[in-house]
């Protein structure tokens, strides 16, 4: 199991060094919330703030989504777990931030917990990676030898369902949605403001939390995340009514990987799949 205390100390040490040398004006990390089991995302801006930094098994937040909050900061340091680092890679690919403007403090972590259920987060429901794909400084020992299960294994029984059962499942789930948009705001890749669903010209769907509006919002969002979703599971954890959105995003990610041969946010030089093409893409993907 990951030694959270040791990582916390390293995180504090590095943050202190960076802030003292003024190499970065802000370090994105975590701090204590209203109690031990509910930490909060935190932007440490001064050496004094460093004391407030904390890291434990409940710090699931994907800090990549706060990068855009500091447009005028020349450089930003960020604590990044495996999925967070993939989110950073996608943001770099989409030129929202430049690699040289980031100091990535990589955190290899396993055994993270969901504060709501206080259970271990089942690695099958996330991207299944333990070590960050991109980092400048690694705050802990790389995790080796974990039994890597394909992140898409959890889809098997949903794919096996026949389409009527699958439709009933998804309609039932999406009808619960109360359109609080927490999934959109929790997602590091969803940085459009206003989002297409907020627009009035055109009105893609009505505002009421009923089937047509919910269906249009979620299906289009699944499409907007195609080839970009890094499988961190934050959307499902943020959802107050517990809709398993990660399942659909995983299925779209699996299809994209099979059709276009590229997983999201793994390599800096990749181009996001839906703003790219290969002449030799086969027409079979349309059948």
């Amino acid at each position, binding site marked *: 199991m990951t030694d959270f205390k040791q990582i916390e100390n390293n995180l504090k040490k590095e943050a202190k060094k960076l802030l003292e040398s003024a190499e970065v004006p802000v370090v994105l990390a975590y701090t204590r919330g209203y109690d031990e089991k509910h930490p909060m995302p935190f932007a440490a801006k001064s050496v004094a703030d460093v004391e407030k930094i904390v890291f434990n098994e409940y710090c699931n937040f994907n800090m990549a989504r706060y990068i855009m909050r500091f*447009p005028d900061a020349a450089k930003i340091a960020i604590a990044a777990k495996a999925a967070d680092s993939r989110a950073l890679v996608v943001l770099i690919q*989409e*030129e*929202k931030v430049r690699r040289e403007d980031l100091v990535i403090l990589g955190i290899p972590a396993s055994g993270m917990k969901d504060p709501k259920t206080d259970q271990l987060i089942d690695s099958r429901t996330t991207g299944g990676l333990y070590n960050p794909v991109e980092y400048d400084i690694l705050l802990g020992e790389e995790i080796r030898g974990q039994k890597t299960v394909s992140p898409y294994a959890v889809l098997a029984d949903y794919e096996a369902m026949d389409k009527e059962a699958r439709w009933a499942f998804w309609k039932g789930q999406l009808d619960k949605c109360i359109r609080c948009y927490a999934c959109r705001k929790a997602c590091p890749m969803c*940085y*459009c*403001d*206003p*989002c*297409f669903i907020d*627009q009035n*010209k*055109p009105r*893609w769907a009505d505002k009421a939390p009923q089937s047509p509006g919910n269906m249009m919002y979620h299906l289009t969002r699944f499409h*907007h995340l195609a080839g970009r979703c890094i499988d961190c599971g934050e959307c499902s954890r943020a959802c107050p009514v517990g809709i398993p959105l990660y399942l659909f995003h995983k299925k779209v990610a699996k299809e994209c990987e099979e059709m276009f041969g590229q997983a999201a946010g793994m390599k800096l030089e990749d*181009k996001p799949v*839906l*703003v*790219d093409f290969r002449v030799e893409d086969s027409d079979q993907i349309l059948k």
Partner: protein
Amino acid sequence: MSRIGVFVCHCGHNISQTVRVSELAHFAAGLPDVVVAKDYRFMCSTPGQDMIANDIREHRLDRVIVTACSPLMHEHTFRKVIEKAGLNQYLLTIVNIREQVSWVTDDIEEGTAKAKALLNGAVYRARLLAPLSSRVIDVNSDVMVVGGGIAGIQAALELANTGKKVYLVEKNSTIGGHMAQFDKTFPTLDCSACILTPKMDAVLQHPNITLLTYCEVSEVKGYVGNFDITVRQKARYVNHDKCNACLACTEKCPGKGISGWDEGLIKRKAIHIPFPQAVPQRPVIDRDSCTYFLKGKCRLCEKVCEQKAIDFEQHDSFLNFKVGAVIVATGYDLMDTRPLIQYGYGKYPGVYHALEVERLFNSAGPTSGKVTMRDGKEPQAIAILHCVGSRDKNNYEHCSRVCCMYSLKFAHLFREKTSADVYQLYIDIRAAGKGYEEFYNRIIEEDVKFIRGKGTRVAPSADEPQRLIVEAEDTITGKFVRLPVDMVVLSPAMVPRSDYKEIARLFNLSTDKNGFFMERHPKLAPLATMSEGIFIAGVCQSPKDIPDTVAQANGAAAEALTIVSRQKMELEATTAMVNPASCCGCQNCVRVCPYGAPFFNEQKGVSEINEALCKGCGLCASVCPSSAIIARHFTNEQVLAEMEGLMEF
């Protein structure tokens, strides 16, 4: 609320035979916002058009729906009609009930029902139509030609002769390109200099042509009609205005540099002109071989020059030009044959490649036209190898088109200037141009030995160490052949200039897998490119001989004229625009547009679209996640509304 007019056409009986047109008009009258609904036998006829015009004025219509044949047929006609009646031409929707309804069914119920649905969709869409006006931009009438080879020279002269101002940019210190290196040209065996130098001189004298030699394009901004191009003038260290080309300096100069013009066969002075008829006939100092620049002392040329034209303090300068169109004619290089170790180029002195042989024949060349090898001796037997690197999946799959013909020319020149036996190792003799086959027959009669088999190996001869052995299989007899020869001539593949990637990036050109620039359409638009206002000519597009190159140069000049001959240029109206309030700066549009119309505005953090380059395809509108891009005339609202209308009944 809009006031829509619906006009249903019978098209004689083409439509009325399977669509109850009067019922359709009656149905239209019942739809919301429709104030007038009529049907007539021939809407596109003059009385039909007048009816529409009158109704527009009479009923103060602000939308018109014509339910008739395909928009591809008469949309343009009816746009002009409503424009004359004072209504913006884009406030029109055509409903296609002929090609896509009446002609494709014989069941009048089905036809009428579908016509109603289509009409209902059109009404939903018409409500949301917005007036559009096509923007007019002014066009700079000058043209820039990049590359001073025969293609660039020809294009520049053609344009200059029509009165347009032309800037001819050439990287080398002289124009003329590879053609100036040749001695003779096939098939007429014209002396290359004799037919080229008059044109070079015409370029120098032509009042409308500004010659920019020893220059490279460093930056391209702007768009069709309004290009803003920065050119880097490399330092020549000789002031070309003062210099009167007495060339005393070139005699005195001690510096020794490898002559690129003579393909490295001999050395040349640091201060030099590549060849006597160079245009402009002014010397240039090559930094890498000038003793002053290398060791800090000498400056002999400065002492000798009466005109005081030498200026060692010169450094690169940047010139800026505004032009309306650009012709890229950057030409080609020959493939470096060193990696093909089986031919031993660079290892055995007897192995030459085509351009070196051209220089050997040239009277201004290193051997003043005498065919002598690197060891000074005259070759007794020569083998010319075709398809070196061409037609070869491991190197270049394309056929370079001209090697067969210049190899035949070499054979003729060798037979004429030496007493050597000449072998040609070929796969197919491709002599398809005008007078080419006749030229081939003439060479056969000059007793040149043709061996049908690709040369596979060149090795030093065991028993005569000075000579070379060329191995091949004569596929006609099936025999393995060993040719003892003195000189081996390779015809390497023609490939684009080594800096083609840089040129492609500057002018937003795409290239094929070998690096030749991509034309907009291989058959119907071979000289245009995906970038509006940028044209290509000559071998930079694909290997070709001089006649085709000149023809393409003239074509490119004509295409450039279509732009610069007009002061004003009307831009398409159905382009896209970005609503900055909704744009989140994800730059998806910038990444996908093949025309580079969208660009990212750094300060505002939003994308904007250069409407001069936008073709109106709408790709950017569909990739925009926050639907901030409005694809005029096909906006999201209009398409959604039309779909809603179509699905109502």
